[in-house]
């Protein structure tokens, strides 16, 4: 219907600006769910969320309620959370253990962990009908494709499309950087998910993630407040240094707008992008030195230096994941509607790294990413205000013009020019991918 009314959605996007309806029209939102979220690779969860056979975790992919489940053979399946009989939701809780099989709470049909029908009561009543154990309509439907990269499980609801590795491309660094910082090369989830709902379109959140101009404007209040306490604590401390967690907060104010321009964004196909620069965190305290020693033992000095030299602040994997690999946390973005977006926020432990290293990134998780966040409260306020503003007839376009025309394009990647870290290239890159997905919609 909409496709008839609006023949070419890619007309909504120009290289340096985008129509406001892209954020506010519920019909465009429905098409996005069909053409983007329910086709591309979406992050389901980490394999350590479901360590034992029968463990499951529910997850929303586009509009589809799915569940990620561990089988007795150790394999992880991603299934539609739905009984094929009468459509009853199979697992009503967010997570849990389903035992040796799934059992529907309505008519007791049971299914193996891979979704295959196991048994039904009164099977003889179906003699001569279309029911049959080998009829795929009688099993729980599986996600078309599931892939696992270093423990991070993704699913795609479309049979065709690039492999996960092709899709991620160079943005795969998000998971390599996170895992490589562990002496064992592995991370495991810290078993707690913070969930926060934003009253704004999902793209507004994604566009903010690599917007290097906003922190010093939006987070000035927390940055200043933390800087004052940091100075006071540093004066009192023996070594003259306050705990690193204060620096994580004060950097939002002490890194001024012009300094953010020193960073760089690199933009990849499919809308992914990376913001380089890491608030200058390569401390030389005893905890870090002890960690360095373990890492050098595990990897050798040369490889260790390569690992810690990776200089990333954020990796955005379009359309649904924001990863802060050096702090071992990620935010998965689940659109709930055109103006409501859920973020699921997870922290990971570097397996084999000393406790203080875990605690350091935990402080960031608690202070920045918890529901009592000292940082995101002001972001979410802005996201809501952006969504309100875009709902008005006060203008037709959203501008992404900062440093436009000065991007450096090479082999499919777009880099911002020198000292242009605050460039709106990431937003331009995301909207370019959006137009490709939406314009090609069948």
């Amino acid at each position, binding site marked *: 219907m909409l496709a008839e009314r609006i023949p070419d959605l890619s007309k909504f996007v120009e290289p340096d600006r985008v129509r406001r309806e892209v954020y506010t029209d519920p019909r465009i939102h429905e098409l996005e769910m069909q053409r983007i979220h329910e086709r591309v690779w979406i992050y389901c969860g980490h394999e350590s969320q479901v360590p034992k056979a029968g463990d499951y975790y529910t997850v929303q992919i586009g509009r589809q309620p799915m569940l990620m489940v561990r089988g007795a053979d150790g394999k992880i399946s991603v299934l539609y959370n739905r009984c094929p009989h009468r459509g009853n939701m199979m697992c009503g809780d967010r997570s849990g253990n389903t035992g040796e099989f799934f059992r529907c709470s309505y008519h007791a049909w049971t299914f193996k962990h891979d979704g295959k029908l196991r048994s039904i009561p009164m099977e003889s009543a179906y003699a001569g009908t279309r029911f049959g154990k080998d009829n795929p309509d009688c099993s729980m439907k599986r996600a078309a494709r599931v892939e696992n990269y270093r423990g991070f499980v993704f699913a795609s609801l479309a049979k065709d499309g690039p492999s996960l590795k092709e899709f991620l491309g160079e943005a795969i660094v998000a998971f390599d950087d996170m895992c490589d910082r562990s002496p064992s090369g592995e991370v495991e989830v*810290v078993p*707690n998910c*913070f*969930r*926060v*709902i*934003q*009253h704004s379109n999902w793209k507004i959140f994604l566009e903010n993630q690599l917007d290097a101009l906003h922190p010093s404007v*939006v987070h*000035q*209040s*927390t940055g*200043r*407040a*933390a800087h*004052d*306490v940091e100075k*006071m*604590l540093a004066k009192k401390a023996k070594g003259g240094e306050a705990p690193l967690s*204060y620096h994580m*907060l004060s950097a939002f104010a002490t890194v001024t707008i012009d300094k953010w321009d020193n960073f760089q964004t690199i933009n990849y196909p499919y809308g992914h992008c990376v913001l380089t620069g890491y608030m200058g965190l390569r401390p030389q305290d005893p905890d870090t030195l002890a960690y360095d020693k373990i890492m050098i033992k595990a990897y050798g000095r040369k490889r260790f230096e390569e690992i810690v030299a990776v200089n990333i602040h954020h990796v955005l994997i379009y359309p649904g994941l924001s990863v802060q690999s050096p702090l071992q946390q990620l935010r998965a973005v689940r659109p709930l509607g055109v103006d409501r977006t*859920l973020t699921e926020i997870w*922290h990971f432990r570097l397996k084999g790294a000393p*406790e203080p290293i*875990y*605690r350091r990134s*935990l402080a960031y*998780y*608690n*202070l920045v990413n*918890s*529901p*009592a*966040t*000292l940082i*995101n*409260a*002001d972001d*979410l*306020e*802005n996201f809501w205000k952006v969504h309100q503003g875009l709902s008005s007839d006060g203008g037709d376009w959203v501008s992404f013009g900062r440093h436009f025309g000065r991007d450096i394009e090479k082999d499919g990647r777009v880099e911002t020019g020198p000292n242009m870290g605050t460039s709106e290239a990431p937003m331009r890159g995301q909207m370019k991918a959006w137009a490709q997905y939406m314009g090609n919609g069948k």
Partner: protein
Amino acid sequence: MKSQHAVEQFLYGQADLLDRKLWQEWIDLFAADGVYWMPPDASYKTWDGQPAIFAEDRNLMTVRMNRVLHPDAWSQRPLWGTNHVVSNVMIEKEAKNGDVMVRSRFHMMELRRDDVRHFAGSYMHQLKKTKQGYRIKLQRVDMTNAQAAYDYVLQVWV
């Protein structure tokens, strides 16, 4: 009976400071090493080294206070306010020196612009008796809706 009344007055007074946005006075109810802790789940045994919605000493409380008082705390511009009701006050332990461990229940209604939210749960206070009155060593806040998705966030203590 005497400590029951004194403890109740203390808890009511603490909640009243929040509703009146008297942040410094509220912080001053904590002992020098006092901690305000809201675990994400009732099963947590300690705030130390664990995910926490809040786990704040007086220094972090000061950061939070100065943030909300900063003129550029954008999210503080709109009208907002809270109303706490504290009840079911039960003293669990009382030491000879007058220190007490007390459990209570709270209900907080919050208005922000035109939106109303409700948060409810239990408080566990470890109170130290001093010449100036009770001071909080640890306040544990177990919200019934701790694990529910947060519609927006919490900006100050509950």
